[in-house]
């Protein structure tokens, strides 16, 4: 079993690319791998507390909660990216880490596979 580091930039709801990265994390954990999940840019929206489910929108917050419970998944939001957008520590969903970009690079160091979803 290996370690997958995913970096994801696209914003919540707007792009199915963020959904892809969450579904991929889910599948990797289901297969027994461990996943580090890094969000930067508009991807930090995923760490916002209090997201609401609507029929028109994917509700990824729920999947993230389930992933945390597996113990094979950690998620970290870029602190400056979040602050710029007005998401402070108290706005962050339980379970999330908030760090600088060096956290992601350190995760890449020990990863077997890295997938960076950069553009939108």
């Amino acid at each position, binding site marked *: 079993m*290996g370690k997958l580091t995913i970096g994801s930039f696209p914003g919540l709801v707007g792009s199915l690319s963020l959904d892809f990265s969450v579904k991929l994390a889910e599948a990797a954990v289901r297969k027994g791998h461990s996943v580090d999940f890094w969000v930067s840019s508009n991807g930090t929206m995923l760490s916002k507390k209090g997201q609401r489910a609507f029929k028109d929108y994917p509700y990824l917050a729920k999947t993230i909660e389930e992933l945390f419970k597996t113990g094979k998944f950690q998620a970290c939001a870029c602190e400056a990216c979040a602050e710029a957008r007005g998401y402070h520590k108290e706005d962050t969903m339980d379970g999330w880490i908030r760090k600088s970009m060096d956290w992601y690079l350190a995760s890449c160091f020990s990863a*077997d596979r890295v997938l960076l979803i950069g553009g939108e």
Partner: protein
Amino acid sequence: MKLAVFKSDYKTGGDIVDRLSAEKLGIIFVGNGIYHASVKDGGAADPIFQKNANFYVLAEDLEIRGFNASQVPANVKVVTYDDVVDLMFNDYEKIVWV
């Protein structure tokens, strides 16, 4: 190297995919990239199939766009999220998203 390329868009990124080469190259159509494997613009085969590569398409991303496995060319393997994880860990070593 063994390189897997997620092709996530239909209209952009062709320039970079064109020049990527690898001893073993896999191209996995996801997101709007699935249109490479499901529509023919003007009736012509998509130029991406000129690459010497293994081609895959994500079933879930076909289905939300109204397509199914029977509509993709025979040289494109239809895969699930679980299969994608196996491809990433077992068949390829480096992974990029375009």
